[in-house]
């Protein structure tokens, strides 16, 4: 029972980490797009 609970918590923590990583990727992609827009319009 305790092991099941531990495994569930581990999956949830990894899920949260995945979601936060997704937001970081979106923001970095946006920074890249900003750089392209600025460079393309000198």
């Amino acid at each position, binding site marked *: 029972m305790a092991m099941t609970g531990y495994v569930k918590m581990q*999956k*949830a923590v*990894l*899920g*949260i980490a*995945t*979601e*936060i990583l*997704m*937001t*970081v990727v*979106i*923001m970095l*992609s*946006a*920074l890249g*797009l*900003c*750089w392209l*827009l*600025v460079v*393309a*319009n000198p």
Partner: protein
Amino acid sequence: MILRPRLQDFRIIGQYSGRMIFGLGFLMLLPLFVAIYFGEFDAALDFVIGVCFCLIAGSGLIMSCFTRKELTWKHGMVVVSLSWLLAMFFGAVPLYLSRHWACFLDACFDAMSGFATTGLTLVQDLDHLSYAHNMWRHLMMYIGGQGIMIVALTFLVRGAESALPIYVGEAREEKVLPNVVQTARFIWLVSLVYLVMGTLALSFTAFSGGMPTDRSILHGLWIAMAAWDTGGFAPQSQNILYYHNFTFELITMALMLLGSLNFSLHFALWSGKRKEIFRNIETVSFFISVTVLFGLTGFGLMLTRAYPGVISLFRKGFYQVISAHTGTGYMTIHPEQFVHQWSPLSLLGIIFCMAIGAGACSTAGGIKILRIGMISRALFRDIKRTMLPRSAVIIDKMHHIKDIVLGEKQIRQAALIMLAYIFLYLMGTVVGVWTGYPLRLALFESVSAAANVGLSCGITTPAMPAVLKVTYIFQMWAGRLEFVSVFALLGTIFALVKGK
């Protein structure tokens, strides 16, 4: 033949509505404690009056409408839409008593804006509003984002059978877990986890920036609540611009993105299905939409040289795009800058972002990216059909947690809701133009209200005509509930008048 509602129907509706109002009274105890803790005794009295109103009205309705009958679908839909209106009226009482709102209509506007997680506000002198009233504004937003009736489901509803119509009536069609009460509790779990994480991160950032400890904690809590619930209320009139802090903006951006995800997707990711993030039609469609619309908006901003640097374009341009697309409404610019600095092309990009919205079964508003994804796929399928032989059989599937065959019924439902939203956007635009505002600004503000975003180009002020305030209140209400329960209430009123 239309059947007139019977007394039994009103008893059921009255009893459940009474329970909701009773619960609202208990929620007002939190800002009351905040008022007492900080010595804001005028504010405390406002909440004592508010609590008394709710408890007396709620218990009066429960006792006078006592029945042992369970909710049916029809009753559930009417209870949801009516409860949201009643929550607006009772929630506005302590706001109006603070004298920071010019009239009761303005207080109702802010209460509906809070519950519907819109973020448009008519408050006067927000910078000097009491901590207690700010706590109530943000609590309304947090509760509204979860769903007022979801709160009720978690604590007040006996059985899952009664709960389902209420759950669906609040524009949540997807059941994350087999039982809707369990689904409601999972939604709360996710919300509380991210609230704690967001509050800690934002409070620490504010404290590191020099804000006193008690203000850091309160501001961190309120901003985390409103960012996660994609609401957009802020404790200062300058919104997120007040903090002048890049880290603060990044954290709020992350919270907005997380809050705009479908709760079914949260469940899938928290259950170990991490590849879902690449396969889900919502995440793929959202990524494409943000990229295209930021490209459009950014290009428009480069035309006017509004933000010539990479970081300024990111902080002012991309921040507003994410705020609009997730339906939050947080701003790192002044509303007047939309009018004077942003080109019509970039304004159009923001309007599209607001209109589309984010994940279904999330805290966000708008048409919803899932419907856009479904309709886009249906369009490509129809184009493919014209190019293939007549006898060809095309089975189109989409992946949303599981593989789903895209049938005509789902596409028709998605298209109908999209049409209803477009009609709502146009209705508000017509009223805005009729009351004297320019077309593009009236369209911007109307879409912001109906899609529950909260970005403003300056139209939403206490000086706004009353007819426009009532129009935006209706738009926020109908947009949040996605029409079905609103039509159910209007249908019941029609049946009461014309029925036999």
